[in-house]
């Protein structure tokens, strides 16, 4: 496989975690400008674990996700009372604080006569686990997609069960959800933590692919992009944000047709979509129509009356 293609696909995969992270909050009705902070925390935490503490890759990944989730848990409380625009600004302030803290965060140890570890704005060099284990870029890409598939599977399960229904309910009508018995605090905090952990996984993968972290890449532009992906691809399904990532990185950045003008196209695209499809290409209505079409086309009448959809006719009822 072409090296460039591998790199592009790996980027798409890693940024997808960030997009999914923003998506989780979007379906609960919150716009966060700060998911890149958890991406950064996941990246730094897992990098420290493998490069400095000698941990393996998987424990490092879990640790990165856990650290990001824990940070999200801490952020969730003060932001609970912020609504709408205030939440957006609050998360933005938080993320910038995290980035600026990494700009001054120094924690280095000497390994084989070389200083390793985060060195403020100089960045964090030498996260070399993947190279030391001789994992090829292609294999690492497969690994990224395996983890992404796992996270997606988890999200699909969530969406089909209690948690997803309640998140969407909160996202559409908080007051109704509460009068129906939803503990807003619990579910909002949970959403923030899950979103943080998902971003953290992406960050951990990013750290090990790049081997080098620089605080300034975790700026608000990254966060806003991840937010825009869900809004482009659609909020009706977890595939939506992935489509958004694919359109931006896959088409605009990598195809090089728009090189130099990418942001002009991307910005215009987002602005237009917000006017004509404010909840993205695959919004709830589109997903609903697709599901109905699928059911009518591919499912036998016997099956249709069974598990997945229409009720059995009950003449007596």
């Amino acid at each position, binding site marked *: 496989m072409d090296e460039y293609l591998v790199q592009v696909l790996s980027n798409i995969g890693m940024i997808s975690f960030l997009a999914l992270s923003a998506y989780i909050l979007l379906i609960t009705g919150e*716009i966060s400008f700060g998911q890149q902070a958890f991406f950064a925390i996941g990246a730094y935490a897992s990098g420290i674990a493998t490069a400095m503490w000698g941990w393996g890759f998987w424990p490092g990944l879990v640790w990165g996700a856990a650290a990001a989730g824990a940070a999200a848990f801490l952020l969730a409380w003060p932001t609970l009372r912020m609504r709408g625009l205030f939440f957006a600004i609050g998360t933005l302030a938080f993320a910038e604080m995290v980035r*600026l803290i990494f700009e001054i965060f120094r924690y280095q140890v000497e390994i084989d006569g070389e200083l390793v570890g985060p060195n403020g704005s100089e960045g964090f060099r030498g996260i070399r686990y993947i190279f030391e284990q001789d994992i090829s870029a292609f294999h690492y890409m497969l690994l990224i997609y395996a983890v992404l598939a796992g996270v997606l599977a988890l999200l699909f399960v969530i969406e089909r069960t209690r948690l997803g229904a309640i998140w969407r309910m909160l996202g559409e009508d908080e007051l109704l959800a509460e009068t129906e018995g939803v503990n807003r605090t619990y579910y909002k905090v949970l959403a923030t933590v899950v979103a943080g952990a998902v971003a953290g996984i992406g960050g951990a993968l990013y750290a090990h692919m790049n081997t080098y972290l620089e605080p300034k890449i975790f700026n608000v532009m990254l966060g*806003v992009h991840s937010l825009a992906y869900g809004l482009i691809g659609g909020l009706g399904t977890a595939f939506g944000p992935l489509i958004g990532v694919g359109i931006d990185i896959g088409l605009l950045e990598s195809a090089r047709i728009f090189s130099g003008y990418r942001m002009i196209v991307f910005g215009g695209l987002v602005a237009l979509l917000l006017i004509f499809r404010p909840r993205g290409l695959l919004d709830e209505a589109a997903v609903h129509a697709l599901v109905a079409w699928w059911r009518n086309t591919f499912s036998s009448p016997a099956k249709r009356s069974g598990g997945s959809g229409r009720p059995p006719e009950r003449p007596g009822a």
Partner: protein
Amino acid sequence: MIVDFVQNTLDGIFVGSSYSLLAIGFTLIFGVMRRLNLSYGPSIMLGTFAGTLLFVEFEAGLLAVAAATLAGAVLAGVYVERVCFWAIRRGAALASMVSSFAIWMQLEEIVTVVFPDRTYPFPPLADFALEPGPFFVRGDHLVMFACAAAITVLLHLLLYRTRFGLALRAVSRNPAAAAFVGINTGLVLFSAFALASAIGGVAGYLIAAADQQITPFFGLWATFKGLIAMTLGGMGSIPGAIAGGLLLGIIEAHSGWYLGTEYRDLSAYAVLFAFLVFRPGGLFAQRQTLRSQLAARRV
């Protein structure tokens, strides 16, 4: 010690007056629309590049540069208004905000395509300094402060002494009620946006003239400084914007001096976050208006 403290506070106030100017335009838009225009800084940035174009290419004079900066900012602002606010239905505040971010990226890329270098020179306005006693005050800072004060007074007169001001306040309070007394709400919103962009243009000109150079990052800087100052003062409040800008300037000056420059922005964001948590209404939280609003709409 005392001298340092006073000098820092002075520096903070002077730099803060430019934040105040940025925040006034920001808050004006928020006040009438109840929506955030993140593209505010980038539109101003586009204006300053229009100014620098005249300066670099044609060696234009101060007035021409200022006029071009203002015109550029207003044009860009009007474009943002049409795409992100007018075209998106009422009430979709978050959609407008995200859309304004998308347009931000557009404006920034347009500027970097036309102006590929990192920085461009900008003509200075008042290249002198005063040294009263042990203190030091830059002339361009004085001009900035004077302009901020003048614009505040003019804006106050406009809002409270003219028909346009009456219409603007009516629309910002209740667009439907403003419509049925005969106000052209669309036109008022549009004009408010243009006005805010013009104020932003003045701010952009003064800041660029003080720095004597500009970069495309000026957009990000202006949006964030304006946003923080506005939020500290209370979104939608003009006195709040002024106080918020000065407060931000003072916080930055002191934290930069006592903690080190790397803590300057960090302190500003920390204070912003603390305000959002403990005092989301800003310095001048408007409890009174909330009450009268509720009283007017009996259950």
